[in-house]
């Protein structure tokens, strides 16, 4: 399948976080392209500890969910602590099928339901980038999950319900910009992992794709990305927000989205941001959850 053309990475004014300042500049063009893919896919967020001077991609980030706390693993090429012994086939299987090299299922806290549809070219470039990272010996931490959710073999059942492997296919009825936006939002960006509500089994409520979650008991909810809400913003406001994490009024977004802005959206080219916005604007409007 023809990969969706990756746009050239454009430098964004935002300084890289301390964690990103690793190793020598990338010389391999594939790894350089992969760096952009890694940003678009937001790998850093879950695969890096949330502290100053954390080693990028060495794992340790706690992801709290209603099912328990997951800890992002080390994905640097360290042979024992990281994924240094993996082959590219192992990597492809992890992203495309949600399987470990030993055949066990990954918990879908790892957003392979989104990543599965990554293009061949992007997958190869991303692998080249991860191989070029300096290896870190940081040890992984076991997930801390509630009973039943900690039973890895049950993930097979979850996948049967909610996981459909397959590649991203551009919709010929839409223009290339909207298709590129779809790919960035749904495949690499995995925006729906937070912006689509989930049912009690953690499966996405597909009828409310990207429609956000209401104000919950212990959180402020997640914004609706369909035109119902987005129509309140013009393109310049949305672009500015995705680049700075702030509205034109200086209102700062929450820390979780702020992290997405600094790791992902602020690093995307203007063209890619425009594609994402075009895709979101083309979604069917869904009313806010009550």
């Amino acid at each position: 399948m023809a990969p969706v053309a990756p746009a050239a990475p454009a430098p964004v004014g935002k300084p890289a976080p301390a964690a990103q300042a690793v190793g020598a500049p990338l010389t391999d063009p594939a790894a350089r392209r992969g760096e952009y893919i890694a940003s678009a896919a937001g790998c850093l967020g879950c695969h890096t500890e949330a502290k100053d001077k954390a080693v990028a991609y060495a794992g340790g980030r706690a992801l709290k969910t209603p099912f328990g706390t997951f800890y992002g693993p080390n994905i640097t090429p360290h042979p024992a602590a990281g994924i240094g012994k993996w082959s590219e086939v192992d990597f492809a299987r992890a992203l495309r099928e949600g399987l470990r090299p030993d055949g066990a299922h990954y918990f879908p806290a790892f957003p392979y339901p989104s990543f599965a549809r990554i293009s061949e070219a992007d997958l190869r470039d991303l692998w080249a980038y991860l191989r070029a990272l300096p290896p870190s010996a940081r040890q992984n931490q076991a997930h801390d999950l509630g009973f039943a959710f900690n039973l890895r073999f049950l993930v097979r059942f979850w996948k049967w319900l909610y996981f459909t492997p397959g590649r991203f296919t551009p919709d010929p009825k839409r223009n290339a910009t909207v298709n590129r936006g779809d790919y960035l939002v749904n495949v690499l960006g995995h925006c729906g992992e937070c912006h689509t509500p989930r049912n009690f089994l953690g499966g996405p409520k597909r009828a409310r794709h990207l429609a956000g979650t209401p104000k919950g008991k212990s959180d402020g909810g997640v914004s609706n990305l369909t035109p119902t809400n987005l129509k309140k913003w013009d393109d310049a406001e949305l672009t500015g927000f995705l680049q700075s994490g702030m509205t034109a009024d200086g209102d700062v977004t929450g820390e979780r989205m702020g992290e997405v802005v600094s790791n992902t959206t602020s690093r995307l080219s203007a063209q890619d941001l425009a594609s994402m916005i075009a895709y979101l604007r083309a979604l069917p409007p869904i009313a806010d959850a009550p």
Partner: protein
Amino acid sequence: MNRIMTVAVAGAALAMGVATEAVAQAKPDVLVKQRQAAMTLIGKYWGPIAGMASGKVPYNAEAVSRNATYLENLSQMPWDGFHESTRGEKSRALPEAYSQKAKFDEIADRMQAEIAKLGAAARAKSEAGVKAQFGAVGKTCGGCHDSFRAK
């Protein structure tokens, strides 16, 4: 003389007491408006600093110094507006802003401390210091918005 002083001091204290206590507490809806006004102004003076610290706008040490100093004052203003009486008022504040008061206050204190550091760096005209501190301030804003403000 001493007696006169005593009376004068007591009188002044009484007058001040009257000024702060005998006047009725502002109405809850007004307290909400006031705290929102403080937040709005924080946004107004934070925006340009964020733009300059992230390199989107040319750096202007004078403007940063002025804005950061305004922010130091403004950063102290919203909090008494989260008075218990405002619990039922319509706003984006989550119930946790009241029920988890200790955590709320801790973040509010940290935010003020981080902004004070930003102000010090800005007045020292240290561009590097401002850029280094900018992220820490943004984190306290965002952290609080995540925990205590509805989307």
